[in-house]
């Protein structure tokens, strides 16, 4: 996590309101970045599971398939299950794309802020992950 530590010489470093807001924004972005990482991981997992489910379905030759809806496994005809899986896959992949885009934007915003803050504070601030 980022921290503003004292420089070794203990010199007086002016911190303006604008600097404080930059630090706050960086902190928010960093938190959102970590949350995004988790969300992307679980979305990827879900996508993979749906992919596997789709493949299993093709291999299986039963007419009625047990498809999980909520907490129960409903017996549904194969075509309906196929359609449902396709829809779920599309929705998950779309949301995964959006999450990845947001992550890229956040990374670039963070590196821009890092430049500004390091330029002003040099050694007195630490913005790296520990």
């Amino acid at each position, binding site marked *: 996590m980022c*921290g*503003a*530590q*004292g*420089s070794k010489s*203990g*010199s*007086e*470093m002016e*911190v*303006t*309101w604008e600097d*404080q807001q930059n*630090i*706050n924004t960086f*902190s*928010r972005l960093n*938190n959102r970045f970590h949350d995004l990482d988790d969300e992307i991981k679980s979305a990827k997992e879900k996508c993979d599971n749906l992919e596997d489910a789709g493949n299993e379905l093709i291999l299986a030759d039963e007419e*009625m398939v*047990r498809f999980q*809806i*909520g*907490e*129960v*496994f*409903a*017996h549904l005809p194969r075509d309906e299950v196929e359609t449902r899986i396709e829809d779920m896959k599309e929705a998950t992949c779309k949301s995964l794309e959006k999450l990845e885009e947001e992550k890229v934007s956040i990374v670039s915003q963070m590196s821009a802020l890092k430049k500004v803050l390091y330029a002003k504070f040099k050694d007195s601030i630490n913005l790296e992950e520990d």
Partner: protein
Amino acid sequence: MSSSSPSGSGGELTERRGIPAAKFIQDVETYLSQSGLDPNSALAFHQERLQQYKVVEMKLLAQQRDLQAKIPDIEKCLEVVATLEARKGTGEALLADFEVSEGIYSRACIEDTDSVCLWLGANVMLEYSCDEATALLKNNLENAKASLEVLVADLQFLRDQVTVTQVTIARVYNWDVHQRRVKQVTPTAIAAADS
């Protein structure tokens, strides 16, 4: 229910839903002389504030986890009701395997039906028509999502205050170290000038 008042930090909120805002300090020396605190007391005050913020953060994070678990639950219920509704006209019964106990499943045959029972909590289950059930569940979902949004905003505000407080602590500490260094240098310089 937040109030804003003009402060040195440019018209920001002074508190948000019971969480006091951390006041940004323009100049450490002015702050210390105005508040009449010596550096150690100021540091202690801000450290305590930081602890209080942490306590509130834990509480909010727990609430967020609860809501994040609740929302998929409601969505699952909506899916089940939608499936039942879709089957209404066809007259087919729906076969469903459900968990009786860990690893043990049983089969249910769900006939065409107009009504569903919803578990409301506190050992209460009410029967609703499919439309009413969908409306109720959708309403609950909207409320849960709205609460989550407010909670996330609260957490962001809180984190900002924590950051401001941490920076303040660092600055007061630095100022104190700087003052001590200056005090150490001055007597030696006077002694050297005298001799």
